[in-house]
């Protein structure tokens, strides 16, 4: 994966919308211009206050170079921090027509001091705009919100509501409560009002709970998949709490959590909902129908069956109109648009997955 590519996607004529690109700071000081003095000083003195035992590093070290493509390191700063390199190496080389920025760390999503979380989120959104989106019109920002305080989150969403460069609202599925809980509903109400999808991207930091129902995994191999198990739990919560019934205009994008599990989860939800439906009478339709109507999935890290065509069964069950291509640039498990599918797609399927579905969802022309 670190061998220089001989052919560029652009030269092969495939334009893509990449629904998962990770920008990065050169250093935390990059945020200082966007923070009030009080929080600048707080950040310098105390830093983030998260729910994990290690400061400034992840508890499951990644497999290579902190989880980055070795060829994605610029001369200075971490991968994703140099817009010029991102352009030449990814946006130009892979024919990226639009790229969705996914800001993960220091977003305020998991910060325990909620006022600091609000200030951080606001600063990160300003920083995305100034550093990436204004200079590079192919990129789109996501509104980072301090999700554990819905009032602060709604303020930030409303602040960005009239700016079309912010196309969605970023929320961590590693939340403090399952995301269907009522305490998060004001966020969904605001999302529906300003017509932005909720983007759930898997996260390395916990909202306060172990990664599995039996505690913490030992190896990164396990934690890597725990994100997908957790995404299933999050989707279950959104469905059974009646979020889609309450907010019929809400759209949710599930990012980097895998997608092949979705049909089996829907069958499982339908089966047990049918038996237990007296417990959730607020649901008016089968769980799978809410997922079909309200959810989109991104491709990376794409599942790879022994027989590649089996994946076509899965996508058929999900719906070809609900899958959106993503690379996860500049992370080590990047999926390349030319190699992501190991079975032949029709022209129509290609057009949907690589471009059309994302353009329709985000209102891009």
């Amino acid at each position: 994966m670190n061998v220089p590519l001989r052919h560029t996607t652009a030269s092969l004529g495939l334009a893509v919308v990449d629904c998962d690109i990770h920008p990065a700071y050169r250093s935390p000081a990059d945020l200082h211009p966007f923070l009030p003095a009080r929080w600048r000083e707080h950040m310098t003195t105390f830093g983030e206050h998260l729910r994990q035992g290690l400061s400034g590093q992840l508890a499951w070290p990644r497999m290579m170079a902190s989880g980055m493509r070795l060829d994605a390191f610029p001369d200075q700063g971490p991968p994703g921090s140099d817009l010029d390199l991102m352009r030449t190496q990814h946006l130009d080389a892979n024919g990226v027509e639009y790229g969705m920025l996914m800001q993960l760390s220091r977003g305020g999503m998991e910060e325990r001091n909620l006022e600091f979380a609000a200030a951080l989120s606001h600063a990160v959104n300003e920083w995305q705009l100034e550093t990436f989106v204004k200079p590079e019109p192919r990129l789109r920002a996501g509104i980072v919100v301090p999700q554990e305080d819905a009032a602060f989150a709604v303020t930030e969403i409303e602040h960005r509501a009239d700016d079309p460069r912010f196309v969605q609202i970023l929320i961590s599925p590693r939340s403090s409560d399952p995301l269907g809980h009522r305490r998060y509903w004001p966020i969904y109400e605001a999302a529906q009002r300003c017509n932005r999808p909720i983007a759930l991207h898997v996260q390395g930091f916990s909202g306060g709970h172990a990664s599995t129902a039996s505690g913490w995994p030992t190896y990164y191999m396990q934690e890597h998949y725990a994100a997908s198990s957790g995404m299933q739990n999050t989707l279950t919560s959104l469905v059974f709490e009646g979020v889609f019934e309450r907010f019929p205009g809400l759209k949710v994008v599930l990012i980097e959590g895998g997608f092949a599990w979705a049909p089996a989860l829907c069958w499982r939800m339908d089966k047990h909902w049918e038996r237990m439906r007296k417990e959730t009478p607020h649901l008016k339709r089968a769980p799978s129908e809410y997922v079909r109507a309200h959810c989109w999935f991104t491709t990376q890290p794409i599942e790879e069956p022994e027989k590649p065509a089996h994946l076509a069964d899965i996508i058929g069950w999900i719906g070809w109109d609900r899958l959106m291509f993503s690379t996860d640039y500049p992370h080590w498990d990047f999926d390349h648009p030319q190699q992501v599918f190991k079975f032949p797609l029709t022209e129509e399927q290609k057009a949907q997955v690589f471009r059309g579905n994302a353009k329709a969802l985000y209102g891009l022309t």
Partner: protein
Amino acid sequence: MKVPYAGAIDCDIHPAMPSAAALLPYLDDYWRDQLVNRHIDRYSFILTSYPPGSPLSARPDWRQAGGAPGGDLADIRRQALDPFGSRLAICNMLHGAVALFNEDMAAALCSAVNDWVAKELLDREPRLRASILVPAHNPALAVKEIERMAGDTRFVQVLLLAMGEMLLGRRIYWPIYAAAETHRLAIGIHAGSSYHHAPTPSGWPAHRVEDYIAQSTAFESQLLSFLAEGVFHKFPGLKLVLIESGVTWLPTLLWRTSKTWRGVRPEVPWIDRPPTDIVRDHVRLTLQPVDAPKNDAEVLLRTLEHIGSDRMLLFSSDYPHWHFDGEDVLPNGFPGDAVRRLLIDNALDTYPRLREEVGGGNNKETKQEAVP
């Protein structure tokens, strides 16, 4: 659809739990005093995962006025054994002892449950087999219980809970697997939670149905734990049975895991072949609840093809839990050429004790010949 012929082996039934008072004769003086003086003998020890009134917990026609479903041996015969023509059925007792924090009390109650099962169920009905209930959160006590029960070959498996204290692949639990391998016992992980952790990595769902759906993700985590920690490498004779886990989540988990493994091999060098192959050799899943669409046989067939093996599924009714009606314990469209493996062969391959002559029980009169 119905079971097409007699002789099936039902790998998951749930006789009703004995009351704590009924366990008193099986406890020593100290624990009898503890239970009586502290009124513990009045508690139900029902796991939160299976509330008695919930539709999932028992089929309406298997409920009876005044008694717990599966609480009477005559009912078990009439409802769980005869209708499906089962030659054998494995009793999995989901007793709340395993959710106690006091490890010694948990161990004493597990022992009492096992002895009660031997005397009240196995001695009286030769078609019944059982799993050994153990206090998994104290592996030393768990091993002691396995050793104590191992001589009774009607016990064919060690029973663990899907959502417990720690992920079960961890080395602290390995003495349990060593004992199981030595005594030709399978390891069975059954759905259910001690609720020592939140059922999801984002906390506590509001509804019971969400908890039940989350069982399949707990099984995913356990399976990955067994793989990543190298349990099957260390114990090549071990069989792991996922009970009441659902089955349709399995293939896509394996696709993803075998892909990830290619990227993370240096972290787990003891995994020396694709995880999919390891799982096909060592892991079995019980049938009910079948989480495929009820009226779409094509989906089931495709999913079975995705699993890529006809040796992994074990027949189960999950009696008295309510997953199907009438005698239609098999999903519609289950391929005929795989039925015999599902009903009989796979269980015999998973539980070597089912092929052995029964021995070690207390009641000599009910001894029977080994299953051919």
